[in-house]
């Protein structure tokens, strides 16, 4: 090949580089290792972590990342090279597999959320939230964002990062100290005619199911959009969809995505038909091929960076397609009835545990709740649990200084009664 090119040695390929830019030292990285050594390395590192299911730990953490069982079908499908090793489906004629699956994904997200349009995925919910906020700003022509404090604290942090450098004013409103629900009065107080969007989450960070209708009424009354966020997607199997929202931004990790220390996950944005041209990210649409057969392709690309450049709705390019495919397979496996049953199991488990503890809030909750520790400190409780190979709940004081000595506990279909009973015992 060098011959064909007309070169003598491989280094000639970079002979033209300006002097000074070449790096002549060997990289200070160990020489190449065998598969066996590599697997060994990751197994060894893995053994240094607690792994729910993996090395016998039970885990009561939720807070945006949930331990749900992953049907074997999911990895079976996503491991097929045709899905795993294909690019973004720009060439529709040889990408109908990916395109069809995304179209199904978009449809299922609409069915679950009650929205008309869903995109092909965002990085995760934490980045979907600011994208939804910016979408609302574009849609309303207004400037301010108003967020409930019961939205996931890390989503709010990311929103803060995104907005601050653009000079978008960001306000927050509180939650009701007794119920854990939105503080509707505070919302009414803080919303203004500059508010582009009110952002709430349901189930909220405390696991509590919000009254979306009520929030929507207030937002709409003020001409703002309502953005509804979800972090625990399994709840959509059971909860009334947030039909009154204008935009929904969510996290799909619960749909067969392993916790993986926080990623890769898949976010999604869905909205009412009206805002379709404001939605960021890829969209797949139905059309026909030249033989008249149904076909799918990426569409409305004029919203996107590769066409519109600085005028695009977002800079997003690579998204989380394979992870969204995992979610799609998961939803196909569970289906209409299964997703509901799954949600009911989650609900039942959390309520069982809650019945043995002292929930901090009175609002209705799905599969997590805030427990108030009384006799012991939450850190002492967690230490004791750790010695029993149980990872306890998330202490909330770090994010909510007012919620002293509380922890957020989550139960899923993978949580088993003996461990729940142990938690209750340690709390007592």
């Amino acid at each position, binding site marked *: 090949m060098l011959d064909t090119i007309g070169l003598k040695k491989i280094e000639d390929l*970079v002979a033209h580089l*300006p002097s000074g*830019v*070449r790096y002549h030292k060997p990289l200070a*990285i160990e*020489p190449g290792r065998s598969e066996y050594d590599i697997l060994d390395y*990751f197994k060894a590192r*893995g053994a240094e*972590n607690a792994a729910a299911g*993996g090395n016998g*730990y039970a*885990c009561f953490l939720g807070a945006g*990342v949930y331990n749900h069982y992953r049907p074997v079908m999911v*990895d079976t*499908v996503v491991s*097929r090279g045709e*899905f*795993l*090793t*294909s*690019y*973004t*489906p720009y060439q529709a*004629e*040889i990408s*109908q*597999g*990916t395109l069809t699956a995304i179209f199904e994904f978009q*449809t299922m997200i609409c069915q679950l959320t009650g929205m008309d349009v869903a995109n092909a*995925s965002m990085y995760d*919910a934490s980045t979907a939230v600011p994208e939804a906020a910016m979408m609302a700003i574009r849609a309303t022509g207004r400037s301010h964002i108003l967020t409930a404090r019961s939205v996931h604290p*890390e989503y709010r*942090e990311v929103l*803060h990062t995104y907005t*601050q*450098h653009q000079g978008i004013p960001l306000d927050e409103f509180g939650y009701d100290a007794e119920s854990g629900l939105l503080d509707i009065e505070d919302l009414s107080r803080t919303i203004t005619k500059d508010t582009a969007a009110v952002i709430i989450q349901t189930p909220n960070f405390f696991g509590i199911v919000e009254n979306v209708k009520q929030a929507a009424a207030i937002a709409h009354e003020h001409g703002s959009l309502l953005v509804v966020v979800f972090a625990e997607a399994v709840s959509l199997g*059971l909860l009334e969809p947030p039909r009154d929202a204008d935009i929904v931004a969510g996290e799909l990790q619960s749909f067969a995505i392993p*916790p993986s220390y926080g990623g*890769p996950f898949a976010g999604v944005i869905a909205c009412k038909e009206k805002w379709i041209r404001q939605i960021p990210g890829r969209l797949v*649409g139905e*059309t026909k*091929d030249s033989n008249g057969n149904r*076909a799918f392709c990426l*569409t409305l*690309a004029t919203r996107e*960076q590769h066409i519109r*450049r600085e005028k695009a709705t977002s*800079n997003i390019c*690579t998204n*989380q*397609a394979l992870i969204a495919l995992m979610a799609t*397979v998961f939803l*196909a496996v569970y289906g209409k*009835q299964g997703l509901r049953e799954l949600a*009911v199991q989650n609900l*039942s488990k959390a*309520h069982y545990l809650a019945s043995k503890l002292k929930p901090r809030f009175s609002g209705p909750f799905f599969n997590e709740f805030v427990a108030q520790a009384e006799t012991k400190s939450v850190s002492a409780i967690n230490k004791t649990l750790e010695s029993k190979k149980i*990872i306890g709940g998330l202490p909330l004081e770090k994010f909510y200084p007012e919620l002293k000595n509380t922890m957020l506990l989550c139960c899923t*279909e993978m949580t088993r*009664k003996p461990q729940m009973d142990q938690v209750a015992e340690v709390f007592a």
Partner: protein
Amino acid sequence: MSIQKVRTNPTQNEELLFERSSPGKMGYQLPDLDVPMVDAAEALGAGNTRSEIADFPEVSEVDVIRHFTRLSTWNYAIDLGLYPLGSCTMKYNPRINEQAARVDGMAWIHPYQPDSLSQGAMQVIAEVERCLLEITGMDAITLQPAAGAHGEFTGILLIHAALAAKGNPRKKLLIPDSAHGTNPATAHMAGYKVENIASNARGMVDTEALARAVDEDVAGIMITNPSTIGVFEENISQVAEIMHSKGALLYMDGANMNALAGISRPGDFGVDVMHLNLHKTFSTPHGGGGPGAGPVAVKQHLEPFLPIPRLARVGDQWSWNYDRPQSVGRVRAFYGNFGVLVRALAYIMAHGGNGLPRATYDALLNANYIRKLLEPYFDMPYKEPSMHECVFSDARQSKQGVDTMTIAKRLIDYGFHPYTVAFPLIVKGALMIEPTETESKRELDLFADAMVSIAKEVDETPDLVKTAPHTTRTAKVDEVTAARKPIVRWKRPS
């Protein structure tokens, strides 16, 4: 020349999940509930629970496997052949990476479990940081961004914060007209005005024009190096000097790092901040569009501004440090796409310090080989030495009314995924070809043969080319109608 690479074979048709549903079918079984079942309406309030999810799929397990297996056969993929998308670095995705990411102790760790129970994961992150810094020659790095564009955004926020800390975040970012669309989109999202700067006749940054353009309003420049025409910016060091002399910064889009790993380090030629695409250079799979990871590496002066949390060694333990007053804040929940980092580290370990430059040379070799074979047949507007990709134009073929997209569609009949079409913008009708190092000479030869054959067809039987593809189960797709009347979800026919 005939089509040598493929023959047609029946592939199964398949309806949408919704269409193949029948009431009551199930593909799952749940474990027995070991606690009392809770009545949802009672626990949540009737208004809070939904009735059925209308039209949601109801299929069996075998329906599911068939559905997705059939769909998969409608896709092209690296595992099937060359995928020469320029700028995308579609290299082989080693399966060991997938295995590593699925080790229980990597996949089943919760981001909020105590640091003491996550030391292995944190060690992996530390190792990825160390390796990427060694490869880039930079001083500090964040692994939080989820993809290239996200990395760009993070990087620009860093510039913004650093300049703001000096008193003035400034207003404009300079972006060459050859840049990828994410660059201007990012600049805009970060609140900067975009100023496009024209490339010179050789496709490089025009340093004199640049010097004129940089003023006190300019925060920095976003440069892709090698550039999107696959050429090393020969004046990169001067560019850095010009920027720095005016207090502005040099951002490097590292999407093309596959041309440099192990042979040239951005940290050594003046770059202040850059991102990497682990899903390009470091072989993590594209998966039909993602996920990726877009780490951002910086010089020391930008380190204080990196997103929180930062990995820190305290005693003999890793911990997360949130106490970083100058940080731009979080750009993503948790610690980034950890599972992608695991895959990238597996790749780095497999190649090692010795193998990475070898891979880079092979990438250059393959690109230059393709270039050599195709140059007689296709117009090449910029003739500078190619690095990891080569960019032609359809100038000759367009005289026959055949443009780059049309050639691309015909290439499908020949059994190949097309190259990148119509990017970069500085090449009218671009054919942007990046073979990567994992292609064999044989596959490259077949590709070149196909391209040459099409070039001849354009002269001899242009209509054959214009109506392509002819052999795919889905013929030419009508994208115009799709955009005109968007149907973006299935609905039950009424």
